[in-house]
């Protein structure tokens, strides 16, 4: 289920190099998908940065958390979205430099909600 949703997302955004679901409370990589095999250290670094980016501006309060955090650098753009509420999960995607990013943050947020089962009626991701 999760793998299929990841594949579907990446098919919709071909410039997406990797998409990662992480548990920020433990720093754990829950699931990921990419055309390339990423070393575990790089995955861990990506998840750690996802957590740091999403904490900025939140003042420790999930209600004040940014709806997404984005860091564009010469090597590409990382976009992270929180699962919302008190959920500890977050979804992060890395996109090629200059890639069209219209609708990416919203789509990532919907995918994240679907993956963690927070959408009403959605099955919990397996």
């Amino acid at each position, binding site marked *: 289920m999760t793998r299929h949703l990841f594949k579907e997302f990446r098919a919709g955004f071909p410039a997406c190099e990797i998409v990662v679901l992480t548990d920020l409370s433990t720093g754990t990589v829950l699931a990921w998908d990419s055309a390339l095999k990423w070393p575990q250290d790089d995955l861990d670094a990506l998840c750690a940065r996802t957590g740091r980016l999403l904490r900025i501006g939140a003042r420790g309060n999930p209600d004040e958390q*940014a709806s997404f955090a984005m860091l*564009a650098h010469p090597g590409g753009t990382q976009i992270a979205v929180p699962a919302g509420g008190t959920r500890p999960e977050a979804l992060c995607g890395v996109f090629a430099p200059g890639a069209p990013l219209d609708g990416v943050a919203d789509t990532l947020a919907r995918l994240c909600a679907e993956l963690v089962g927070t959408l009403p009626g959605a099955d919990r991701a397996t």
Partner: protein
Amino acid sequence: MSKGPPPSSLLRVLDRAAAFGLGSDAGRPVRDLSEALTFVHDQIAATLLPRLLEFHADGAHILTCAVSGRRLMRFTPAAGAETVLDGLADRDGHGAALEALARTLAPCAAGPVLRVVARDWDDPSSYDAGGLSCEYIAEWLGMVADAEATTGWDRIRVRAGTGILVAARLDDDDLIPLIGEDAGVGDLANLLEDILPDLESLPEWEADGMPGLFVFGGLGPDGAGLVVLQDHGALIVAFVRPVRIAALVQAWHAGPRHQRRA
């Protein structure tokens, strides 16, 4: 007929095709003819191998461009005759040809979703015309202001336009308003006071200085995003409407290409 998800083998093929510049994108909403022309230019600029780029507006095919080496070799409106472009043989004829190209995008004035489908161009050697470079097309399309905007902030300001609600420059400890009312700049200052220590404590920042451009969705008024970037050693902060954020990030990434051209 079942309407399930496409099989993973199909998705793998599509992934592989995208790696070679084939396949289609998800579509991009454009607000007017100018954005449509920019979209077409950006697709030409991103195409190195010989490709036929089919442009669709709200699902209707409007234009096919034959492109190779970031040069537009010829184009054909969905209902119209083919125009071959030869930048070497007929330098004076470019304007009329590109005006014809712009006319084919007239349906885009209504703000459709533009989508491009890239197909293999089987026989590019049958055309010996030189085509027009994407740099020339950019200048003709009026993207000169973009090209002359050599700093990150300049490019973003040009591309985001009225999407920037408030902007200010942090010089030492002074926040100098660039765009917007004083009240908005005050809100910006308050938010900056909260987030700047967090930003500066990022390992990426501590190691090499500011690593790039940050956007935080929804931290500004009415869902606006907070944008933070560095420009000539100073920090620029801005509240930007959500709909302009994607274009803004693309403009930031487009910097080196425009700087080479300048």
